[in-house]
């Protein structure tokens, strides 16, 4: 595609703006050992050089060398410097958006410690500055900006759904007085949602309401800003990413919540908890943690009691990349499953070495690259199949949707569940 010089300039300006010591160091450090290839589910699937994480580094490092080093200006070909031309831009869109899940597995395994996903995101930021975010991903970002949630759910529809769920909950024995409180001030927990829950898969909301009820928690949902996702993290647009975090930050302040609890999601907690304070340049005055950690805390403190015998089917765990490898929430889901499931089997590899489900990095939203997304998931399908498990539990709604498709595509015959559902099923009320 032909990109005007002015737009190219915007991409290069973005790179200059982001040029910190950290970025410079990572851009200069790849030693081209190629070991990253074996970490990457794209490279392992296709075996093509273009998917090598090191090659993705080169795409942006070449541009850096061309415009930010003396040698790059006078003798570019000697040092692998490369113009930001139309061809390079096409290549970047193809693999930086379409061939990387920003799962960070290569970063963990890099022989010299290059933060490859940080460089990929920086490259995405350049593309975003040139207005080149794939349309489907951009439309999810736009929905979040203009409507307050990434699926464009009108507030009335949300409220109707939550009231309906609460009514339904009252029919469950032991939950006759369980609540789904809305916009309540001064509570301990402000809970968040992936918009996909109220829109299409609300069982996890009911499940969490049951867990909160059993733990006797003071909690609330906001009907203004509740979206735990932040697709601008994946599009690369820091301005919008900050805006989305700011809204949740303000909401927690408005409702005077002591704890912001992030729903089952990978990139959301990554964006909100770890990148957020830097994006909005304000430390959080409240505690922010994931619902997985919160449920583990409930068990540890004896606030909820679980009976693993209530979940007898063999169960395995898929670690969401942003939550486990990049967010350190690794032992908590295992601790929970030890208490909530009778037959838990690890898939191999697991924990920080787990493979991406294929849906990360915004891939699930990007229909443009859907064929690749399913093909690279064969690794994950094999991992699941080898466990022989009947249920795959994963604390991320994005992973869940991808795994539902993987389940069908590779005929795994498993059920896919959220962590909250598994915990709710195991609850013993006192």
């Amino acid at each position, binding site marked *: 595609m032909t990109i005007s010089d002015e737009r190219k300039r915007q991409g290069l300006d973005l790179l200059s703006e982001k040029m910190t010591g950290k970025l410079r160091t990572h851009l200069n450090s790849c030693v081209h050992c190629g070991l990253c290839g074996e970490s990457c589910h794209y490279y392992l699937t296709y075996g093509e050089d273009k998917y090598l994480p090191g090659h993705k580094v080169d795409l942006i490092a070449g541009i850096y060398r061309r415009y930010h080093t003396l040698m790059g200006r006078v003798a570019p070909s000697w040092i692998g410097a490369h113009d930001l031309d139309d061809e390079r831009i096409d290549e970047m869109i193809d693999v930086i958006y379409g061939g990387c899940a920003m799962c960070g597995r290569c970063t963990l395994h890099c022989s010299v410690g290059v933060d490859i996903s940080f460089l990929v995101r920086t490259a995405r930021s350049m593309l975003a500055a040139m207005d080149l975010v794939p349309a489907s991903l951009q439309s999810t970002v736009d929905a979040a900006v203009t409507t307050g949630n990434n699926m464009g759910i009108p507030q009335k529809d949300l409220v109707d759904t939550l009231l309906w769920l609460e009514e339904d909950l009252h029919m469950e024995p032991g939950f006759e007085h369980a609540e789904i409180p809305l916009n309540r001030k001064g509570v301990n927990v402000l809970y968040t949602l992936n918009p996909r829950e109220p829109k299409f898969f609300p069982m996890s909301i009911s499940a969490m309401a049951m867990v909160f009820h059993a733990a006797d928690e003071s909690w609330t949902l906001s009907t203004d800003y509740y979206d735990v996702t932040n697709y601008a993290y994946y599009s690369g647009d820091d301005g919008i990413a900050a805006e989305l975090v700011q809204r949740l930050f303000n909401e927690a302040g408005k409702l005077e919540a002591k704890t912001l609890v992030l729903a089952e999601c990978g990139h959301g907690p990554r964006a909100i908890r770890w990148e957020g304070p830097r994006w909005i340049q304000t430390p959080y005055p409240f505690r922010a943690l994931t619902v997985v950690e919160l449920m583990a805390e409930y068990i540890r403190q004896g606030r909820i009691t679980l009976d693993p015998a209530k979940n007898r089917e063999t169960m395995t765990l898929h670690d969401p990349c942003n939550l486990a490898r990049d967010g350190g929430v690794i032992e908590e889901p295992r601790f929970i499953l030890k208490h909530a499931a009778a037959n838990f089997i690890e898939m191999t590899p697991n924990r920080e070495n787990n493979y991406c489900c294929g849906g990360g990095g915004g891939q699930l939203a990007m229909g*443009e690259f859907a064929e690749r997304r399913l093909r690279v998931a064969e690794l994950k399908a094999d991992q699941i199949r080898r466990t022989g498990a009947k249920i795959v539990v994963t604390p991320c709604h994005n992973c869940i949707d991808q795994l539902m498709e993987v389940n069908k595509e590779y005929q795994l015959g498993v059920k896919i569940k959220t962590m909250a559902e598994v915990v709710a099923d195991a609850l013993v009320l006192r």
Partner: protein
Amino acid sequence: MGTIIIDEREFEVDGDGFLQDPHIWDKEVAQLLASHDGTGELNDVHWKVINFIREYWLENDMAPMVRALCQAAGIRLREVYELFPMGPAKGACKIAGLPKPDGCV
């Protein structure tokens, strides 16, 4: 983005298999899409859900909440996932000929 061929009929679809042009949809297309994704033969309850989704979309330019379609079709939440193994979005909405919704679906 791509084409799929079901029973010798060719459809332009996006990467996720949603119809590129939602307006070519009719009942025959719905049944073909349902056979293609493993939903199978559409029964009266399927049709209640699909027709509601279709009408809602034509009026509001977006997919309905799962609550609304349960209430309109007179079914319990659990039944939606049994009726449409691919779920309300990639199952029911796709069969109803809607474009792919934004977000984690």
